[in-house]
């Protein structure tokens, strides 16, 4: 039974919700607007909101200066690659934790999460030396490996909590029918887990896309993703707000669009087992 709400109340709620939504979104909107200003207008006081000479010169400048497509492709490959690799490793692990829990399952899970607490700045030098020796510096493969390892705990945990919600009797029935483990995972469990896997995938693509320490420090010209692209527009000598805004808009646009279109998917699985 749907709740009945008076139109008057609905109107008030609409007003408040839109005001808050726009406030939260405003910094992004402002960045997008600034990207269409000239550098002088970007710092003008008082600032103009819409009534300025809209210009595309920042975008053409950014386009001329850097290979956006290269950075974009690197970002796609690195974030998607690390997430898929992470899923391939995490699905069996999360499956066995959820359905054949041992005494130490919870400890293992917590230990996995605690590996995420290693501050990257403290281990850059050791990792850099390792990467040098394995020839992984400035390769997409190297970044895929690092980001997989960084996000693996989150992936395992998200999947674990999602798998735990899957009713056991279905698996039991499959086992009665003589399904092997492999069949069980592929034909029974996976289809049911698709929403959870999808949102895990999305969340981790976002996290990997925005990761800005390893991606900056382990790459040079070839494998650098969009985070490095941003670093080439921030804080030079001279005015940079407008160009930085244009670069930022280009860097966040793909993930923003992906996020918006997949919003429903993201929400469905983003429960971390918190919903009963």
């Amino acid at each position, binding site marked *: 039974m749907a709740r009945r709400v008076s139109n008057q109340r609905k109107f008030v709620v609409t007003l408040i919700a839109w005001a808050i939504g726009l406030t939260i979104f405003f910094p992004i909107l402002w960045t997008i607007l600034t990207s269409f200003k000239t550098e002088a207008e970007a710092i003008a006081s008082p600032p103009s909101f819409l009534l300025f000479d809209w210009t595309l010169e920042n975008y053409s400048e950014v386009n001329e200066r850097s290979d956006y497509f290269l950075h974009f492709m690197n970002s796609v490959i690195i974030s998607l690659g690390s997430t898929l690799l992470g899923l391939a490793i995490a699905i069996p692990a999360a499956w066995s934790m959820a359905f054949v829990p041992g005494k130490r399952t919870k400890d293992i899970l917590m230990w996995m999460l605690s590996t995420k607490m290693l501050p990257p700045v403290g*281990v850059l030098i050791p990792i850099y030396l390792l990467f040098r020796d394995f020839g992984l510096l400035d390769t997409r493969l190297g970044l895929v490996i690092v980001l997989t390892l960084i996000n693996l705990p989150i992936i395992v945990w998200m999947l674990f909590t999602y798998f735990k919600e899957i009713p056991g009797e279905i698996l039991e029935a499959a086992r009665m029918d003589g399904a092997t483990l492999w069949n069980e995972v592929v034909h029974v469990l996976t289809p049911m887990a698709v929403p959870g896997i999808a949102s895990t995938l999305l969340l981790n693509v976002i996290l990997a896309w925005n990761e800005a320490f390893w991606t900056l420090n382990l790459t040079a010209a070839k494998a650098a993703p969009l985070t490095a692209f941003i670093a080439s527009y921030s804080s030079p000598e001279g005015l940079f707000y407008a160009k930085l805004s244009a670069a930022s808009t280009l860097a966040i646009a793909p993930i923003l669009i992906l996020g918006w279109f997949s919003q429903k998917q993201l929400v469905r699985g983003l429960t971390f087992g918190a919903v009963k």
Partner: protein
Amino acid sequence: MADRSRFFRSELAGPMATAHSRAAARFMISPAVLLLLGWMIVPLSMTVYFSFLSYNLLMPGMEEFIGFTNYEFFLTDPAFFEALTNTILLVVGVLFITIVGGTALALLLDQPFWGQGIVRILVIAPFFVMPTVSALVWKNMFMNPVNGLFAHMAKGMGLEPFDFLAHAPLFSIILIVAWQWLPFATLILLTALQSLDQEQLEASEMDGANFGSRFIYIVLPHMSRAITVVILIQTIFLLSVFAEILVTTNGGPGYASTNITYLVYAQSLLQFDVGGGSAGGIIAVILANIVAIFLMRMIGKNLEA
């Protein structure tokens, strides 16, 4: 329904689970465990080794064993306790804002209103913005006391512009980080809220319970697990907040916005003192694990049920 599934689950895990399935489970879990073990042990053991050396990256060939000097140096750093406090304040502050704000937003977005989908999109958007970008945008276009939008607003109202990053640096950073994480909290809390049994709510409404008591006795208990999850996940990320500090304040003025991660950065990548930075890294790991143990207790209690 829920009870029955749990019944079956425990049966599966209990005495009836065959040796075969246990072995298989161990086999399936091992790649993840081994990889993470490697990821943890290899850099960690190198870091432990470096932490006992006098090792500056810019002076190779001068490395020598110096025992616990690096640890002593890091722990007696006048910045250390301030950094520790700042780390805690940052985590707690952001958690507070995101959970209170997230709950309020979730309650709001759960109401029927026109343009729900669009508003939801607006609210989650900050989560997709790279931390460096959001820090740059906030610092330059909003908090700058001369050219920032807040300054213009203050001047428009005839007030003296407030210099956020100089006089409330930690608070400003908390604000920026909270803006980035608010969508995440909102999403999870909203999902939890939507699974709330509407009939139960309506029944209590008929019984004359007002909004306050409905919220405290029905909504909040229902969301407690979601809140725990938000705390856990965010804490992991918030302990290592770094880019936002680097971009906005460089940890200052003084040490007013330096956290442990930033202190380790200053040691290892500004000074290139690999020995000192490694010792700082190990201390940060130990501190993080203390937090992890606390969280584990909390989660253990709250997620078991």
